[in-house]
């Protein structure tokens, strides 16, 4: 199982805070997961193909080419605006 979190404007637009993806144990890239999520519906397709989408695996910022495996916590969010 891979836990996927969405934050801020992305969370609101997807109307989803957390999504659980079953995982057969093979190593995946973040891009593979994104493709699966994008195929859910038109709005997910649109929101998850934004060029400014940021991604964290196990709470570390990573590029979309990063690997993910069973048990990981994956998060997608828009550019940050703290400070």
């Amino acid at each position, binding site marked *: 199982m891979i836990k996927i*979190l969405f*934050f*801020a*404007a992305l969370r*609101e637009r997807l109307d989803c805070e957390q999504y659980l993806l079953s995982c057969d144990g093979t190593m995946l890239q973040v891009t593979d997961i994104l493709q699966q999520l994008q195929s859910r519906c038109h709005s997910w397709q649109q929101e998850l193909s934004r060029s*400014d989408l940021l991604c*964290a695996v196990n*709470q*570390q*910022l990573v590029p979309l080419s990063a690997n993910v495996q069973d048990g990981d916590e994956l*998060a997608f*969010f*828009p*550019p*940050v*605006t*703290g*400070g």
Partner: protein
Amino acid sequence: MTDMSIFVAVQSDDFCVASEYNELRRQSGCGAIVTFSGLVRELSDNQLHSMTLEHYPGMTEQALTAIAEQAQQRWQLGAVHLIHRVGSLKPHEQIVFVGIASPHRAAAFAAGEFIMDYLKNRAPLWKKEHTSNGDYWVEAKTSDQHALTRWG
């Protein structure tokens, strides 16, 4: 300078700059203390009622700690205090505090700027403004992205 310390907090409560300053002053061997405080600015015409700071619990603390550690690797610093508030904030309220104690002023200033530049680009925090005209997520500024380039 005998030791280095990092203090990081993510909290909904307000912070007290005086307390943080007094702690930083206790760091031995430090002749320079720089503090930065970020406050909620009003929009023009007082349209801003409040602001909500959303964050990624757990990751925010890790990200802020990593940024403080990077600063300590780059400059000779005695202590770094980094506090970011989350939740609902009104205009004029304090949002973020960075405090640096260092033997030298150049290092203290540089570390303060470095930490704020990285925080603005790397810490998972998002601002939503509640205004007379509706609620809006704040857009990231390209100037904040450009600020990072100077640190190589």
